[in-house]
């Protein structure tokens, strides 16, 4: 089989994701960034789906595309910024230096990926090349993930709930009216 349809879909949605991320970092208005972020998350969820992670694809759209981006848009709405308030004074020198740093990092990563024997010896990931055993076809299903998550990683799961609880308490405390930190670090009000 010379080519696989899942590979073509993967590369197409990867192109969409890269273009969306480029739009996210270049738009002046954060509302446009947030909208393109949703598109990016949908393209990324499609890639998860092709890599046989259907549960992660659903979670990606629900948690990231739904909950987190609504939170971002809600905060943008709360701030109610005027056009002159979102103006940034970024010098061309800083932009060029940032571009050099990130492109250099990409070249370094690409070199590491291309020369790694472990990565180059990895099998082809297209669906038609996967072994057809029950252990492989069931991997990534909701049932398999739930069994492994709750049987072997129960403690980590419970600790995550404590983390989320602390995050909720911290967020409520930080945004409480009259509790803002004053200049000398003491509390007012």
């Amino acid at each position: 089989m010379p080519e696989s349809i899942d590979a073509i879909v993967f590369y197409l949605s990867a192109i969409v994701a890269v273009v969306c991320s480029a739009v996210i970092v270049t738009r002046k208005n954060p509302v446009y960034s947030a909208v393109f972020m949703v598109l990016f998350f949908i393209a990324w969820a499609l890639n998860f789906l092709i890599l046989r992670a259907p549960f992660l694809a659903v979670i990606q759209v629900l948690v990231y595309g739904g909950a987190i981006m609504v939170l971002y848009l809600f905060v943008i709405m709360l701030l109610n910024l005027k056009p002159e308030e979102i103006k940034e004074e970024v010098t061309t020198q800083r932009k060029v230096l940032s571009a050099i740093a990130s492109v250099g990092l990409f070249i370094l990563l690409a070199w590491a990926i291309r020369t790694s024997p472990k990565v180059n010896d990895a099998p082809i990931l297209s669906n038609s090349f996967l072994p057809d055993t029950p252990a492989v076809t069931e991997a990534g299903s909701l049932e398999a993930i739930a069994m492994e998550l709750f049987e072997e990683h129960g403690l980590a799961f419970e600790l995550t709930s404590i983390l989320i609880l602390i995050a909720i308490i911290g967020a409520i405390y930080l945004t409480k009216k009259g509790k803002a930190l004053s200049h000398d670090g003491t509390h007012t009000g």
Partner: protein
Amino acid sequence: MTELTLDNVLLIASAIFCVGVYGILSRQNIIVILMCVELMLNSANMVLVGFGRAAIASSPTPASPNMPQIFVIMILAVAAAEAGVGLAILLAVFRKWRTTNAGELHLLNG
């Protein structure tokens, strides 16, 4: 190129990561900087899932095939907590200094 290979998955994930790095280095809007952090977390998730898929494809009876995806679920929980606290800090900063521009917050400048 038209087959799905592990190095291409990793290259796409590193491209997204580097776009996130560029955004964090060059932008001054705190909202966009937080979005770039989300981009970088997502690229790390793709690397984990890609390696998990490679482990599944390399043997008919993989040892623990769902481990990478459980990692991603944990990262998702941490990312949700990070977004909540980060945006709460952003709101508190905006109330105090009336700005979302990281360049104007120079209290820690030497």
